[in-house]
């Protein structure tokens, strides 16, 4: 195996339906391909490896896609999260107005006190903009969140945003633990909950 992993982090992506949460994680968004099972069944979570200032970090990224239609997500979804990405669609004021609800839910259920939050103003390439950049920035400042604007065409911006979020988490003492032993294929010590993976 190569270099050791510094830590593993749990990151949530939340926001209203249709704001483009899932596409933030895709390298190609306008590339049409055959109907695939992943689109039909839905994605549960993703593991991604990120190098931040020479530190190799593994992220478990949870996207609420679909579940937000049932409104309140289960508390276990929030538990243990070190970072949260809140997304709204700049061409829909309603999705911006709902951010307060999402923040409330996050503050109610997230059990890490210093969870790092980032606000993503998505779909800035759309013509009928309803929420200005200044409004987004103001909201982000008021709630001590990082802020970026994004669109399907600004993949690089999204990548940088993830790095910034992780950097901020790593700079926050007590929010993460050093995974000193690194990972290896024989490490199966993680406890299981309901027959599911241990870090859920």
């Amino acid at each position, binding site marked *: *195996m*190569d270099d050791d*992993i510094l830590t*593993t982090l749990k990151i949530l992506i939340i926001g209203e339906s249709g704001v483009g949460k899932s596409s933030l*994680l*895709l*390298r*190609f968004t306008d*590339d049409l*391909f*055959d*109907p*695939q*099972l*992943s*689109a*039909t*069944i*839905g*994605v*549960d*979570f*993703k*593991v*991604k*490896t990120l190098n931040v200032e020479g530190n190799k970090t*593994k992220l*478990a990224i949870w996207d609420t896609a679909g579940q937000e239609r049932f409104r309140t997500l289960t508390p276990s979804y929030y538990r243990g999260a070190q970072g949260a990405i809140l997304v709204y669609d700049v061409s829909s004021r309603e999705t911006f107005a709902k951010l307060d609800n999402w923040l409330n839910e996050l503050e109610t259920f997230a059990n890490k006190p210093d969870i790092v939050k980032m606000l993503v103003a998505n779909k800035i390439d759309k013509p009928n903009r309803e929420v200005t950049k200044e409004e987004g920035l103001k909201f982000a400042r008021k709630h001590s969140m990082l802020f970026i604007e994004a669109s399907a065409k600004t993949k690089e911006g999204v990548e940088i945003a993830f790095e910034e979020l992780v950097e901020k988490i790593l700079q926050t003492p007590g929010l993460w633990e050093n995974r000193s032993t690194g*990972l*290896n*294929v*024989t*490490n*199966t010590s*993680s406890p*299981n909950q309901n*027959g*599911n*993976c241990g*870090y859920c």
Partner: protein
Amino acid sequence: MTECTEAYNLSELVSETNTNLKKVKCLRCDSFILQPNSGLFTKLEMSLSIPALRQKKSIVTGDSIEYELLQNFWIVNDAFTFENIGFTNTVDNKKYLICADCEIGPLGVQNLDNPNEFYLSIDRVKHVN
């Protein structure tokens, strides 16, 4: 259901210790899936039946799903051993592995009866030095 023919030479892929010699990447988008020496080679006696990557008919119209029998896998014991990987929601007590970057799949399967065994199909990824 079609049997997959092996378009690769296993001796070039499997190390003396039965692990993957090369880096494993996504066939479609090159996403880095697995570091060398991270998966354990397994040739199953009972092939796994996994939905085909390319479905001839549209799944959304309710046509039946086409399957493929797969035999050769890299077994990984911890989700965090992967560099990049995605998991679908649970269907029939299974989660399918998909590419984290382009979501092509299934690339493999996790049976929740044995949650610490992730089966990554050798037929559905590429191997590079």
